[in-house]
């Protein structure tokens, strides 16, 4: 049951998770979380591998909402280069259909499902005001401008809602769906499930045989290399 046999392209693979890292450069070349899936317990493997399979059908969003949500989430998550990408909207839709919320809402916000519906409609209306097109059909730069305007409001009012609470709703759902996906883990060098194997080499600059060193360790986002 040792992970030591599994190099970056090791044993027990369930097929590689699609590489999505155009935006970030491939910092962990050859690192593939799924190459280790043969070392995961069956219950965890069932849950995680279902995310790389066919996404669930849309049940909650209307087609118009689905389109707006897809554009919103792709912009929020920087999925700007087309395929392959992580499909987050089907998993957000599934959570809303099942009312699998975080178990709380701000008193000044509707329940999560309704809040999603309302805010997607507001995005369409802002987009039509800005460029006479529904949000999903607007050019990516215009979509970004509409989103940026919401963030810039801080805690001020946006269509009757506290913009900061709207921002929290969107980013929470989008980030949870995205960073649950093995493709996202490949991009950040995180090996995902670790049971029953565990880790043998914790510590600064210590790696397991199946972990891959960052190819750009000095690529500090603060150095202003981006933007």
């Amino acid at each position, binding site marked *: 049951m040792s992970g030591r046999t599994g190099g970056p392209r090791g044993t027990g693979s369930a097929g590689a998770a699609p590489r999505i890292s155009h935006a*970030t450069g491939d910092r962990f070349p050859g690192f593939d979380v799924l190459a280790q899936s043969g070392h995961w317990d069956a219950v965890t493997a069932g849950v995680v591998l279902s995310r790389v399979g066919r996404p669930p059908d849309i049940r909650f969003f209307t087609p118009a909402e689905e389109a707006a949500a897809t554009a919103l989430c792709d912009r929020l998550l*920087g999925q700007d280069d087309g395929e392959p990408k992580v499909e987050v909207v089907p998993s957000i839709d599934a959570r809303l259909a099942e009312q699998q919320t975080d178990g709380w809402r701000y008193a000044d916000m509707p*329940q999560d499902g309704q809040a999603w519906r309302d805010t997607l409609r507001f995005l369409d209306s802002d987009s039509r005001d800005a460029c006479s097109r529904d949000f999903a059909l607007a050019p990516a730069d215009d979509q970004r401008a509409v989103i940026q305007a919401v963030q810039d409001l801080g805690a001020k009012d946006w269509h009757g809602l506290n913009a900061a609470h709207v921002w929290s709703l969107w980013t929470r759902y989008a980030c949870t769906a995205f960073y649950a996906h093995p493709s996202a883990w490949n991009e950040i*060098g*995180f090996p995902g499930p670790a049971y029953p194997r565990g*880790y043998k080499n914790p510590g600064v600059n210590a790696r397991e045989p199946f972990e891959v060193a960052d190819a750009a360790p000095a690529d500090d986002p603060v150095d202003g290399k981006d933007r």
Partner: protein
Amino acid sequence: MTTVRERNESAWLLPNDGSRTNHRLRADMRRFADSDTVDLVVVGCGAGGSTLLQRLARHGWRVVGLDAGPFWDPDADWVSDEAGSHHLYWTEPRVISGADPVPMGSNNSGRGVGGSMVHYAGYTPRFHPSDFATRTNDGVGADWPIGYQDLRPYYEDIEQELPVAGEDWPWGDPHGYPQRPHPVGGNGEIFLRGAYAAGITAKVGPVAISNGRFGNRPHCVYRGFCLQGCKVNAKASPLITHIPDALAHGAEIRANAMITGIGFDERTGRATGVHYIRGGVPRFQRAAAVAVAGYSIETPRLLLNSASRRFPDGLCNDFDQVGRYLMVQGAPQTAGRFDAEVRMYKSPPPEVSTEEFYETDPAQPYKRGFSIQTVSPLPITWAEHVAAQGHWGARLRRYMSDYVHWSCLGALCEFLAQPGNRVTLAEEKDRYGLPVASFSYSQCDNDKRLMRAAQGVMERILRAAGADEVITIDRYAHLVGGARMAADERHGVVDRDCRSFAVPNLYITDGSVLPTQGSANPALTIMAVSARAAAHLAAGGR
């Protein structure tokens, strides 16, 4: 002196064949009928509830513990994955409000046997002696009706039962731990290095994670998923530290049973049992005494939802105390960036702490203090930290791709108890038709000052360790209070032994009874308070 095993055999009642649940013990569990008047029914099988059940079952009491959630099997029900662990949290709706509302989510309380300790981090510090008299000493908060010395023997007992691993502890009442400290991972290493360079004392521990085999519980495998439920049985939760022994001594655990009200007899003025719904069917368990241990939100909510002619504003609420003086700890989280790889996801998030800033420092413009600990968020929680800096789009992805280079510390600031921070009932109903909890929070100036002071110290430590950038997110942790213990019924809901002032056979034995919170994580203290209440009941308080 008795050995741990003689007092609590739980760890030896678990299987030693690589599986995690003793199914035989559960199948053979004693079962009571609703019409049996059991000696005690306990609402909620978390930190406080399970400790009480185990103690009184040992004393021969006929006890039943009901929990709204499942009777977990770590093998079948838990995963080594962040998003897949959503079912561990209490996700029935709650409404948050106030000037500084407290979001919950994955930082939410738990649901199911083991309670919130199933997904708690595992830090188990004691409170300091000063925590029990902050009103007298510092002019803030409240004095407890008991002192540190009253809890001390119970701290020692529970530390052995969990068991707790850590270095000799120099703060508060100095003490040692039953197990040696764990080796640290990258995040702990950074904290120790930075603290040393900054002239701050930091220590490894105290964590309720077995360092070595304990009974049939194996050693930690340093996989970092403590907040998702420990599939290894290395991290302590009542599911493995107290429930097995309770079952072996004739307690019944009735899972998936949502308590909807506490039965009350207008004529005798006593509690008669609990109304609950199981499998959609409304039922009533008769009992000679009732203990409520449903967490600081659900406990006050249940009391408020249990109104009667005698208690029109909710059970035990004669003096408008129920739901008040709720406290969270301010838990700002500061991360530092290193060119080296830290890979903080390897090793348990709870590793190293300092309590050097715990006590009131007369030189500072605030009372009381804070502690600092490693926190090591996994990717989804880390994304929340990064997104809170305002990053989104390509910039968010760039920041996130840098994950292996970050080290992350968290503070626990002692927010002060205030009457307006409270649980009330919302208009909205849950699927049982019961009004959900509305939870309002506003910080006072002292709270805000502590947040910034703690952030400053975390930045100092990380910079001293060599970080070239630090980023902070304001978070909150560890709800306690809401039905506090006090000297009399005008200032609290229960007395020093956790017995309610208003109803002589009604007890509250969870985090709700804490009048102050210090800057220690609360689970150990909750268990110690409950164990003390159990000793009082066993000695004839029945």
